């Protein structure tokens, strides 16, 4: 098993930290993992993205241009990465702020109203965990206990009181994800 993922959105949406939690969780489950961030001009205002690979084998290139799954959280990232999903792959997006919805018919497309839900909960910070839940529902690569360990590893100890809230958001994200276009 090798899962190649791109997560892309605005800086501040928790794109890099979502990737980090995923990578840590994979590592705790004894997978090979890599995490390659955009650290360039994007990071200094505008868009941010991270490539995460989770695999049973040694990872060849941590830098890719084709992905099994794209998690897309703003319009710029949709424009940039919709075509980077491998045929038959998965695209997950939050329609909030999207003016041009994905059009491909050779991939599975799902949406999650994570921004709206996070606002409703009054917990903007769990936005990315709602999205992570959507991903884990569609690609159950990592057992919940290892997600818990991943959260413990990637959050500083003084934030460990937030772990139950994050786990609740992941569970809620699993319920909220909706199919938009499915292959037969």
């Amino acid at each position, binding site marked *: 098993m090798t899962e190649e993922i791109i997560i892309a959105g605005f800086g501040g949406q928790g794109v890099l930290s979502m990737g980090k939690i995923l990578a840590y969780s994979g*590592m705790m489950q004894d997978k090979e993992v890599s995490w390659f961030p955009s650290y360039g001009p994007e990071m200094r205002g505008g868009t941010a993205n991270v490539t995460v690979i989770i695999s049973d084998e040694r990872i*060849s290139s941590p830098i890719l241009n084709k992905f099994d799954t794209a998690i897309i959280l703003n319009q710029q990232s949709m424009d940039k990465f919709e075509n980077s999903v491998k045929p038959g792959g998965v695209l997950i997006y939050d329609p909030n702020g999207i003016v041009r919805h994905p059009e491909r018919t050779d991939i599975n497309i799902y949406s999650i109203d994570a921004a709206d839900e996070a606002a409703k909960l009054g917990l903007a910070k769990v936005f990315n965990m709602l999205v992570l839940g959507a991903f884990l529902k569609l690609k159950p690569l990592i057992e919940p206990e290892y997600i818990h360990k991943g959260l413990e590893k990637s959050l500083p100890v003084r934030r460990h009181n937030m772990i139950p809230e994050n786990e609740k958001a992941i569970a809620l994200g699993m319920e909220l994800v909706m199919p938009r276009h499915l292959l037969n």
Partner: protein
Amino acid sequence: MKDIRLMKGNEAFAEGIIRAGCDGYFGYPITPQSEVLEYLSTTNPKERTGMVVLQAESEIASIHMVYGGAAAGKRVVTSSSSPGISLMQEGISFMAGTELPCLLLNVVRGGPGLGTIQPSQSDYFQAVKGGGHGDYKMIVLAPASVQEMYDFAKLGFDLAFKHRIQVMILSDGAIGQMMEKVELDDQMPRLTDAEIVKRYPWATTGKTPDRKRNIITSLDLNPVKQEIINQNLQKKFKHIEETEVRFEKIQCDDAEYLFVAYGSSARICQKAVLLGRAQGIKVGLLRPITLFPFPTEELARLAEQVHGMQVIEMSAGQMVEDVRLAVNGRVPVAHYGRLGGIIPAPDEVLHVLEQNFITSKTEKKYEPAAY
């Protein structure tokens, strides 16, 4: 239990020098290697081992602090990225002239000038051919993973002191910024002053009644003596070329075509090898781990086996010159590079290899087969 962590390349290097018994780090922040100093500042090396960590006022100050520490027989390090390494060249040349061991890390970004903060491999010439003045070489190690960023800290110190030479780790922004699993070793103790006196009789550890004063200088105005100094340096470089070559071969045994790439480009080529093999193309990868000394003999051997070599670098073509020298016309060598911080993709480099070598080879297949 094994201590396995998820770390950025820059952090792994910083942890690596601490655990390898480093005495002092002197540096100045620059993207994309600022995490080195940041990590050292937040993980208490002073409390852990007594190691000194100092943010100098500039790169020029950093390298000369390294020069001073190395003269005293200490295990010292600086790190920077391309523009900062350019500033350090005077100090590096002086250390070459005085044969002082030290460890240098260049997390390369695109140039020339301030260029960009994105990854590049355009400092190969500067690192491998001697970036400062004078006839000198450094040992240059090219890590291709976060684990190697960690491992090469200790290896770099070992080589530096074994040969009394500067060791440069030539990394790039991609390896520095990405996170992978790293397996950590136990902490090595720092050398005591008494151990340094015993092991390094050349070090300026204070005059004792039983020996002459040690003087560290690269100046000798007598040309006869200066020629001997230079000849001895060249003897050392030759010895290093004979004994310290390191490389990795991936799927080379039956390869008909060969990628040659180092650092993050080698990782991209590794994926391209998998993609190529899935299409039935017999392609392999030679990854130089030491850029000086260069795996010249191995490439010459492979030149007898393969139909073509495709060099992939994030530069306009630097290492390709050493590959061509090694191959010496026996087999075609093509270069493909992306510039200015652009990273090539695995299918892109495979396509280039196919275009350069295989299309014509396929046509040849239509010729009457040999007996």
